[in-house]
């Protein structure tokens, strides 16, 4: 009995020692240098291997970051925190805090406010619809609301609301600007995270024309620019735009005075 226990211990110890030594030797002899950052990058990733970044898994993405200087913001499940952690490891700057930007749809049009040129049938995607006469709306600069941005948003910050308008949740937005790139009418633009009022229109058409096709479009009347000195609005090319360089005091007044109510509080 005792002998058996002794044998058991001995053999396992021997086996363990043998294999341990073997592996130790092998690891010394066979070691291949590997960039240490790869493993630390991999550790910072969520490790769920979802493939949202476009790579085979977190390890592959980590490798791409270190070896091919791939973008750091591709990990959607990790979101902002992960991107920051990666930036720390890679010694890169992704400054989210200082002037954090968020995407914003510069259009308040929907089915009720604007007219259409034709009935569109086909793929429910802005870019696919844009091929045909830049969309069915008479306004060719507005939000088509078919959701190219919703599909491309890596953090699902963009949703379509009940009233048919596209809404960006600015607490979720990570400012990757993918929606800005994909938007065919360029109505999605970045604004500072803490901005309050904006001009919800993107149409440079003349006021008379805008009035014909959209009830909430900017008509370029310049009331906001001229009557409110500290409103921070500027009208160029028949279209008002808000300045975001500092705080302005008369924004609310300008918004109230705007005839088509194109100046809106950011939600």
């Amino acid at each position, binding site marked *: 009995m005792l002998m058996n226990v002794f044998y058991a211990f001995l053999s396992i110890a021997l086996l*363990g020692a043998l294999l*341990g030594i073997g*592996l*130790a030797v092998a690891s010394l002899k066979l070691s291949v240098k590997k960039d240490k950052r790869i493993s630390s990058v991999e550790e910072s990733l969520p490790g769920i291997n979802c493939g949202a970044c476009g790579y085979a898994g977190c390890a592959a993405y980590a490798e791409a970051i270190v070896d091919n200087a791939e973008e750091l913001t591709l990990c959607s499940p990790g979101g902002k925190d992960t991107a920051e952690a990666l930036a720390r490891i890679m010694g890169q700057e992704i400054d989210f805090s200082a002037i954090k930007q968020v995407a914003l749809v510069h259009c308040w049009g929907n089915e009720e406010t604007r007219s259409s040129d034709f009935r569109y049938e086909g793929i429910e995607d802005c870019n696919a619809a844009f091929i045909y006469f830049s969309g069915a709306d008479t306004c060719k600069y507005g939000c088509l609301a078919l959701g190219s941005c919703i599909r491309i948003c890596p953090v699902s910050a963009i949703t379509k609301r009940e009233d048919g308008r596209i809404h960006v949740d600015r607490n979720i937005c990570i400012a990757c600007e993918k929606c800005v790139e994909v938007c065919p009418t360029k109505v999605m633009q970045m604004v500072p995270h803490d901005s309050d009022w904006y001009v919800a229109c993107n149409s440079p058409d003349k006021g008379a024309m805008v009035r014909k096709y959209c009830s909430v479009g900017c008509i370029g009347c310049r009331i906001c620019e001229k009557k409110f000195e500290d409103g921070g609005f500027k009208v160029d090319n028949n279209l008002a735009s808000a300045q975001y360089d500092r705080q302005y005091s008369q924004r609310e007044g300008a918004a109230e005075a705007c005839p088509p109510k194109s100046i809106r509080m950011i939600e």
Partner: protein
Amino acid sequence: MNHELTKGIFRDNPIFVLLLGLCPALGVSSMVVNALGMGAGVIFVLLGSNIFVSLLKNFIPPKVRIPSYIVIIASFVTIVEMVMEAFMPSLFASLGVFVPLIVVNCIILGRAEAFASRNTLKNSVLDALGMGIGFTLGLSLIALVREFFGSGSITLFPVGNFDGVIRIPVLNNFPARILALAAGALLVMGLLKAFFNWLTDRKERVRI
């Protein structure tokens, strides 16, 4: 309530959320009693290995830590094997190859590596208990569904006159036998996981 203890039960449930230890979860889940037996075994091994790893964490050189963990785990598994064979031969027989396979159950190695090797003894014990109970609950849930529909019964331990088998009327006569078979295990696991996803998704939506 202690977070280390409770997290394994729902939020980090090893089976449905972490997707660890799936092989035994499916392999021994045809009867509730097997699931409970397996769960007990896993809790024991998890507890033992977590305690040992946590105690020894400062003495094990990092290079050989995984093999060391495996040795520790394997020793406990062997103990479980021997105890089970001696005292519960029928259970041992029905669990079959899955008892030695506790060694490679990813939960145990995973907890040893990810938790016990970095945490205090107390937390490691709580973690082991929580994870073990979570595993047992998950396993039992699968087993319950499979046995309920697949055999029309719920098998527990025999106590006194009670032979340990609760028979479900009607279903007992027409069980969906497939659920007790291999295909059924995979299907039930998939459906339960989907159900868990749906639950968590709904919870998150409510929170927002």
